[in-house]
């Protein structure tokens, strides 16, 4: 009997440990609702560990072409079960920082970035979590109709 209980215990542990990841993966379904008047173009799942002492800030980057004359609606959704709040930063093909979703001076997160593009090119989207906390999120790029 003891043997079976251990097996069942292990089963629950497996399910619990995979819970965080599966919720992270299904975030896009929740985030989809924020599109409103925009057309979905791209999404990236982001899952990063907590920043260790003396380590560089964990972050991931993706590239995507943006076109002049189009207004892009860019946003992200955080998984509630992890503490990290995602920050997006966007750089142009010349590596100039165009914007971040966190305004340092105002200590304010922008829930949505509206970006009417004037310069076509390939832009780099970088994602990291505030204060290097562990987090999971999904970043979405859409175009306003």
């Amino acid at each position, binding site marked *: 009997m003891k043997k079976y209980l251990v097996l069942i215990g292990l089963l629950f542990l497996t399910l619990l440990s995979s819970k965080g990841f599966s919720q992270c993966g299904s975030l896009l379904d929740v985030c989809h609702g924020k599109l409103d008047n925009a057309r*979905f*173009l*791209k999404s990236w799942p982001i899952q990063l560990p907590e920043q260790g002492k003396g380590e560089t800030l964990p972050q991931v980057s*993706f590239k*995507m072409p943006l*076109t002049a004359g189009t207004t892009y609606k860019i946003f992200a959704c955080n998984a509630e079960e992890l503490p990290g709040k995602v920050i997006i930063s966007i750089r142009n093909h*010349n590596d100039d920082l165009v914007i971040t979703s966190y305004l340092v001076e105002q200590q304010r997160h922008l829930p*949505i970035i509206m970006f*009417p593009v004037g*310069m076509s090119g390939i832009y780099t989207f970088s994602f990291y979590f505030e204060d290097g906390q562990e987090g999971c999120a999904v970043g979405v790029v859409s175009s306003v109709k």
Partner: protein
Amino acid sequence: MKKLKLIPLLLPLFALFLTAGCQQGQRQEATDLLSDSLITADVRLDDDVIGEMISSVPNPVEMSALLQKSGVVYSQELLNPADNVNNYNTNFKRALNLGVYGTDLVYMNIYDRTIATLRYLSNVRDLASDLRVEQFFDYETLNRLSESSRNIDSVLFITNTGFDNMSRYLIDQGRGNLAVLISYGTWIESLYIATHVQTVPPNRETINIRIGEQKKVLDNIILLLNTYRQDPNFSELIEDLMRLKREFDKVTITYVYKEPTIEEIDGMVVLVDNSRSEVNISDEVITSIAEVVAEIRNKIIG
């Protein structure tokens, strides 16, 4: 008796093993296709770089949306005929035309041709199934949603995420060559449609600028294909694209960078991009680009 009481408790465990078994089965099937990969290529981009570069290929939604917004009339004749799907009997052709049909599907959806999409949807399913990546498309839902034009955004959302997830999966499975071909197929079809639609000024100019901007994308695509150039099929694609590149080399793009500003409009933070890009492309260049694109694309769909 004691053991019988344990059965309900052990059933979930059994189910978990079954699920794990199915996942293992999928992985096994995928590795069967490794013969499609050109592992011996001498110039091989890292998988992460391949993924990143594929991500920088424009989404066909944007080009189709621009055409519709510019008042371009829908033209079914421009699309790859649905019956052609029977001609694709190698994975090389299947992957390229999965991309082509993917773009056609997007074009039809943007123009509200929802009923007509069913045949193309079925082609995408068949080609994806032949490549053993059909798990990324929920066809039943797509079929149901396609019955009404009110669901276009949802259809595009499911199609887009399906293509993205499929691409990531193929790269993870060491089949990046197929991901590159699919991506190339979507791009060339999009470019073909844009260079062959009938329109009038000033909309023609807007479309021409968008075509000219593909110069940068073309460079990336050549780099991507070059990773697998030891495969004669890939080297033939590169040769064709080098002809196209010679035409695109006549396009000039200039950039002027200015600091962006942030404004609050209707309670929403808007980033105002003060930078500008200028594309210089003549009508003659557009004509020659259109000719080369048609040759390349017709070879792919033939």
